[in-house]
């Protein structure tokens, strides 16, 4: 698997194959980041699309000294934050406070229900750190940069999340 940084010039040239490669290497982390915040799969899908569009649009601003995944996930996080702010302004009752991470209309298997139950034990910060780490084994140090928290806090949140999942 090639380093994502090697695709930058190809992305600037709007190379489809490079985009596909970047997408498949990063999609799970991007989805985990977004769904940990918006707790709504259809909104997460829209935000995921926006994230990749913004990534391409901003590709010239990418600083090659930075980790590409960190940069991409920061875009995803900022878009999710904007979405949450927008909803808060528009609706007196925040749908983010919904009890379900996944939409109720969707047929859920036993496993998904169980996963949902585990994730609902975590608060937003814990869920974000936890999912980013377990889904694509992202290093806590990188997560700390994305969520703009000290490394120690991230380690702390992760341990708290593990304890809650274990109960």
């Amino acid at each position, binding site marked *: 698997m090639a380093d994502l940084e090697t695709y930058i010039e190809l992305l600037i040239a709007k190379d489809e194959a490079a985009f596909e490669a970047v997408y498949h290497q990063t999609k799970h982390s991007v989805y985990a980041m977004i769904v940990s915040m918006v707790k709504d799969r259809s909104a997460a899908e829209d935000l995921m699309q926006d994230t990749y569009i913004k990534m391409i649009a901003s590709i010239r*601003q990418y600083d090659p000294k930075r980790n590409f995944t960190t940069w991409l996930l920061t875009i995803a996080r900022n878009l999710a934050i904007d979405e949450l702010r927008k909803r808060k302004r528009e609706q007196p009752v925040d749908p983010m406070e919904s009890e379900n991470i996944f939409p109720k209309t969707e047929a859920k298997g036993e496993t998904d229900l169980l996963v949902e139950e585990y994730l609902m034990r975590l608060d937003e910060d814990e869920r974000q750190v936890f999912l980013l780490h377990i889904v694509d084994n992202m290093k806590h140090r990188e997560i700390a940069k994305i969520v703009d928290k000290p490394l*120690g806090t991230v380690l702390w949140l992760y341990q708290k999340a593990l304890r809650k999942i274990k109960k």
Partner: protein
Amino acid sequence: MKLKNRLAMIRESIKRQTPEINKKIRIEEIRLDESPVVSLVHPVRSLRFLKTAWAKTTLAMTAIAIGLFGIVFLSDGGFRLDSTPEMAASLESEEDALAFTAITSASLLKYQTSGMDFVPVSRPLSGGNTWQIETHLSQLNHYVNVLDRMIGPVSNQSITDLTSPRTGFERAFRVLVTPLSGSQIAYELHYTEDGTSQDNSYVGVIVAGSSEIHFEASRSLQGTREWLLTTFLIPTDRSDAVKARLTEETGNTVIEYEHISNGILLSKSVLTLTMENSSRKAVLRFVEEDTIQATFLLEKTTGLRIEYEIGTQDIFEMDSMIAPEFSYDVRSITEKGVITVGVSTHQDSDVPVLRYDVQIASIGTRSYILEKSDDE
């Protein structure tokens, strides 16, 4: 279901549900933004971590406390402890008070994590002739002496900034301590900033003799509150980590310890230090499942006063009159006590000794004279 299976299940579920939106994106239609580079990461405010003697001392003392807890300093020959009675701790400064309480908490943590619950000290040991209090005091005496031996009066302590000679670390500081008597003690803390100057996380190692304790630390400023979160990795073959989070506010320092083994929280304690004029207090609380299990109030007056309260505990007591191996009596006990520590003179040898006066309702008042730690 085991934790690792749950994690695998969550991982697979998230991956399975990840939508495939790549086909909806027409990359050739996206207009590339040509605007100037703008960082998407909000910069962290400039922090003063490791710039003050207080921070250095705090970190080092905490590390030592953790080191004691890990029993590495004591067993690996990093220090030869000489808890002679004239080394009785004198809590002359905030640093001393902090160090003392940190070390005491480590001592008590050690109790908790070595399989011993917080049994009331008035309870006899299994033999019936020895009391728990004597074991506790023996430990306390040991740490009081260790404290002074390691820390000494703050006026005899110097901290020097260095460029670290160790590979992989940028900076270091060396701490030299000269106790009232005995040879000078030195330890070094090597550290490096991780990443850019905006990234306020640090990694380092504390070296004392042949012992090394690795740590990761991060520091943050939130309004007027400044806090330091440190993770110490104890050099054992267990997957242990002790996290110490320090929060500093005007007149207050709070240290939260968590001992984690293989991802599982074994113990948690919260130490609050209060400095008001000449009065210094430290409250140590052991917490289990958000319930306070035991509280220790340490106060420096002319000597040291320790007020403690152990939450309700179910005590299993063997009824040896019937069938020792099968018959147990269960009692719920809540206990309060006061221990005062002062320097006295041994009536026979005329040397200074530490005197512990213990007042516990159920056993009355007892006094103990202790000279040397049994661990030496």
